[in-house]
């Protein structure tokens, strides 16, 4: 019995490791391919044309790539920040407060996940062009393209953050919150001092999802930008690279550079973290 149990435990343990390993390999398989092909000499992204640094050379001489990258990061950061705040607040309210019309509100806040992206993009296109812009221009103001894009990204991200945060909130032990209330904390203090810290991993997870959604978005961005602004995020820049039917390898090079930049950022963060640890010690 004991031996069998130990054997079964070991098998399950190694299966777990194997599955995890396989999943990471699966995640990085296409990434390896795209890095490899960013060094291809061919003008076509799917064709291996021998080793070359041409794609990088062409990229680094293109001033537009820098502004596109910057735009993407600015849009993704601000959209993620706001969507995370709004989504977390929604999750808290829906999970912790007594609310009238709860059923309808619940179903409604899930809808942005249901709607196909192209339909939301077209809806926002018409909303901006026919409703919001005319309305805002009557008071002599306008909506700049980056702001319209950020608004769109917030809209499709809120629900994702909400779902992730609610999942953690659902079975979170209420006794801590109740204890704080008993000790005379206001509900708001409880949220800030007790609930939010406990929610941190879910908030981070939700924010990461919102960030990638924003970084990858094409349709909402494309249709939310007005005519003639020339405002381009990275996906719009890549769209402009493609031309009629050809996919130049610069696309792979852009993606590879994104990876390198993210890796450098995380390395920097780790370094700073370690230094602050050692200083404390």
């Amino acid at each position, binding site marked *: 019995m004991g031996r069998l149990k130990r054997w079964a435990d070991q098998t399950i343990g190694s299966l777990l490791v194997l599955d995890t390993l396989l999943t990471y390999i699966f995640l990085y398989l296409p990434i390896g391919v795209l890095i490899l092909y960013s060094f291809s000499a061919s003008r*076509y992204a799917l064709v291996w044309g021998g080793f070359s640094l041409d794609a990088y050379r062409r990229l680094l001489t293109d001033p537009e790539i820098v502004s596109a990258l910057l735009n993407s990061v600015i849009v993704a950061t601000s959209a993620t920040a706001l969507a995370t705040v709004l989504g977390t607040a929604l999750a808290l309210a829906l999970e912790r407060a007594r609310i009238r019309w709860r059923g309808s509100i619940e179903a409604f806040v899930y809808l942005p996940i249901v709607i196909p992206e192209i339909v939301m993009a077209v809806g926002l296109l018409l909303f901006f062009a026919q409703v919001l812009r005319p309305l805002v221009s009557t008071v002599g*103001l306008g909506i700049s393209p980056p702001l319209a894009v950020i608004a769109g990204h917030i809209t499709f991200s809120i629900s994702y953050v909400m779902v992730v945060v609610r999942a953690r909130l659902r079975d979170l032990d209420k006794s801590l919150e109740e204890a704080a209330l008993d000790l005379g904390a206001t509900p708001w203090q409880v949220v800030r001092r007790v609930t939010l810290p406990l929610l941190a991993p879910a908030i981070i997870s939700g924010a990461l999802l919102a960030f990638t959604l924003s970084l990858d978005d094409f349709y909402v961005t494309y249709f939310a930008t007005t005519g003639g602004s020339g405002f381009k995020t990275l996906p719009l820049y890549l769209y402009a690279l493609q031309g009629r039917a050809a996919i130049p390898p610069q696309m792979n090079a852009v993606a590879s550079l994104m990876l390198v930049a993210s890796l450098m950022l995380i390395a920097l963060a780790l370094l700073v973290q370690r230094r602050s640890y050692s200083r404390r010690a």
Partner: protein
Amino acid sequence: MTSTRTFSLVALAMLSLIGLGACASQQAHRELHLFIWANYIDPEVYRLFEQEFGVSIIEENFDSNETLRNKLQAGVTGYDIIVPSDYTVEVLIRQGLLAELDLSKIPNFQNISPRFRGLYYDPHNRYSIPYLWGTTGIGYNALKIETPPTSWADLFEPALLERYKNRVSMLDDPREAIGAALKYLGYSVNSTDPQALADARNLLLAQKPYLARYDSETYDDFLLTGDLVIAHGWSGEFAKARLENPDIHYSIPQEGGVIWADNLAILKSSHRIDLAHRFIDFLLRPQINAKIVNYLHYPSTNDAARPYILPEIVSDPAIYPPDEILEKLEWIRDLGEALALYEAVWDEVKSR
């Protein structure tokens, strides 16, 4: 206390969203805004124009006429020049979105070949000037094919398709795919006869099991990688693929194919109509026009540009087809109500 802070934060965010845009819409210096197919003009040409006229060009892109129309019909403005294809010009004229051209401001219009003046969608070139054009036909890898395709039969006859099963692609485009089937059956690509369309639907359904994909974007890539052997597609793409691999060829089937043209047009909503005329005139200068053709390998409507175009482009029958083939080509027209027939056929072909 803190709650009001959060509230004012959100309110501030919403307000700034609306407010900040005010300044962004006012431009300090002269700009010209293009809404055009991606990668459709040699960047060098933009630089030359910017140098000569002191105007900076801002480009935005679309990848289909329908995307272009979606934006314009939704009421988006801010573009000066757009580059729609033939049938879309017709629709945009009818919707009153295009500005009337003043041809006296475009003296280089005289460079346009008589063959491309006054086309069906704009008989007096009041709104549009044809710029680049091309054809739809069959591209193939000569090394992997026994006999070069000369007829649409090579794309539609099961006996012939059997040899290249899962190595064939059709354009993911209802008018082009149904049009090719109609052409093979001996009808016009603009047929609205329900029987003809029913026949075309059956042909397409019989063809589907042999196809690797319906594809309008990456078929040239897959032809180059060897994953496709025959592809239904646009002449310009095959011409570009040929630079990469000389075994890629293009032929227009003997039954005839489709001809199309992209056009330069100015939007009625433009505030820079004068400058837009100058830009169009600039693009029609022979040397400038030739630069674009040499960059893209698409044929130009510009006769005067020919001496400056690379000889291998001018002499390539796949790019500039001979007159006897040109005679057999047909324009895809806007069919109004009858498009519903095409929609039904395509929904069925794609959903089965």
